[in-house]
């Protein structure tokens, strides 16, 4: 186990370095120049030049790259092109916000999908299974922004039960988590269903029944525990989607998360903030994948990484 963690951490550093360099190259490859964006469409050219000089955009690329990389090694991610605020100050608080939103959404999605998926597999082919499949398919085809806006108007404006924007109280969590979670729950339900159908077909299920175990125990103890193995890997993949999906949810619910910051920084060509946001986004994801692998070894006694 420790060897796995160590190798993954080493990889994180390496991947981080490669990612930052790749982003730097990519940024300078795509059109769009921060100085012109700041000056506005109708600004005269010499104004754009003056901004470029003032902010050091005109330095040769390799100089910018080397100085940035040196500072990153010392933990300084530079300052935002525009607000001149240190990138860490901008990015770090938002990591928590996105982690909270994506985390709760994942928890909600996992619990709902495990329950619905198991029941649907238990009554395989029956009406319950049909209903659950229909529900999950509807969930998969409804874009996050549709559920979001409908949720806002139904529960926020008309019924006035739930607050809409920001994250100042726990009630603020409900709508965004349900919106993001519902989509993921639908995806996961279909996955859990097929894994459970597979597990319920195994021989040890007959043994369990022959031992006199009630159906509840057969499904939720014996079958589910086995189905967990493929499910955990699929949930790991799901995290990627949830983090991706959080971008739209954060925009709709005015949630100050990392996803929105990443998109804004790309659109306004704020390179340091963009690199910082994507870098930490990647680190979160790699750590979550590490967690999934560790969970896997705990779940499956046959696999061990030592």
């Amino acid at each position, binding site marked *: 186990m420790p060897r796995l963690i160590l190798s993954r951490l080493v*990889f994180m550093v390496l*991947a981080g370095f490669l*990612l930052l360099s790749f982003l730097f190259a*990519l940024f300078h*490859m*795509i*059109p769009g120049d921060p100085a012109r964006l700041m000056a506005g469409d109708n600004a005269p050219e010499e104004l754009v030049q003056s901004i470029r000089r003032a902010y050091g955009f005109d330095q040769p690329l390799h100089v910018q790259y080397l100085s940035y990389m040196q500072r990153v090694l010392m933990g300084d991610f530079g300052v935002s092109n525009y607000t001149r605020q240190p990138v860490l100050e901008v990015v770090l608080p938002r990591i928590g916000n996105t982690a909270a939103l994506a985390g709760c959404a994942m928890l909600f999605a996992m619990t709902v999908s495990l329950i619905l998926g198991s029941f649907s597999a238990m009554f*395989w*082919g*029956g009406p319950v299974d049909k209903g659950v*499949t*229909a529900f999950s*398919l*509807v969930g*998969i*085809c*409804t*874009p*996050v*922004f*549709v559920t979001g*806006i*409908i949720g806002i*108007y139904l529960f926020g404006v008309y019924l006035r039960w739930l607050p809409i924007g920001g994250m100042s109280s726990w009630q603020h969590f409900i709508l965004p988590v349900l919106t993001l979670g519902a989509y993921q729950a639908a*995806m996961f339900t*279909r996955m859990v269903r*097929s894994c459970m*159908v*597979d597990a319920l*077909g195994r021989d040890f299920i007959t043994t369990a029944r022959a031992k006199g175990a009630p159906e509840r125990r057969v499904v939720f103890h014996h079958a589910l525990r086995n189905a967990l193995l493929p499910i955990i*890997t699929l949930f790991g*993949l799901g995290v*990627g*989607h949830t*983090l*991706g999906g959080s*971008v*739209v949810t954060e925009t709709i619910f005015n949630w100050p998360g990392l996803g929105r910051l*990443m*998109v804004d920084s*790309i*659109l306004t060509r704020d390179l340091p903030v963009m690199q910082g946001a*994507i870098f930490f*986004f*990647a680190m979160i*994801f*790699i750590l979550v*994948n590490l967690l999934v692998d560790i969970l896997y070894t705990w779940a499956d006694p046959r696999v061990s990484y030592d």
Partner: protein
Amino acid sequence: MRKFFRDFSRDPVALVFGLILLGIYIVAITAQWIAPGDPFETNLRNGMQPPSWEHWFGTDQFGRDVLSRVILATQVTARLTTLAILFAVVLGVPIGMMVGYHGGLADAIVMRITDIMLIFPMIMLAIVIVVIAGPSERGVIIALGLSQLPEMIRISRGVTLSLKEELYVEAAVAAGARWPWILRRHVWPNISTPIIVQATLTLPVFVLNASALSYLGLGVQPPTPEWGQMLNEAKDFLINAPYLIIGPSVALFLFVLSANLVGDALQETLNPRTKSRRITRRFYRVSRKSALS
């Protein structure tokens, strides 16, 4: 193949939705001729009309008939998603198989690259591709295909890994078979079912990603209609003109429902293990009739 169709058509649900899926693809091919109105003809006087006999799904902001735009969009979206899936499968599966089979350093590197690709913001990817391939359908297909590539690689790798341990594969190796033949002969047939299931699951993801792309204006260029784009435009009128979202949503739901149910049915007919359990539906009817009181 004849046996395959006989098995497949045995299950009523699969049959019905198979026909619907076929219908959608036929609509996609014949869109130009069967669209009731002209999807491009703007008529500002009767913009934003609710559904009526003349316009079943109402008219959009510029008075264009939403139904004919949905029909034409079927062609664009069907082409877009199918090509994107093919792109992901053709590129992803071989890589996954090879990496799964050989393992070692190549496996670790490819897996970590897929890790990074999974979280790489789709938007950034789209901007880069649009710059290289131009803001055309080609760019969108590549962007969508790339976004699904990691998952295809992971699945084919997973199946290859589990099959590598199977006895018959070891027997083939013992018999001196080289790995390309083994992958094609033994591994590929077993990969087809999970890939089909994954492909049908990714259909809706593609359409929604296309709508995210069009949110930034990077998707299919107007005036060609595309479901994702129409969903996005209807978003701004969700409260004032809710009917605008019905057209594309119904079309998307039918397309995804039929694709998934056909995917399920395919999985059952092709995958030996779950085949025996499939006839449960008819079982309920038959056994209830003759079973004990």
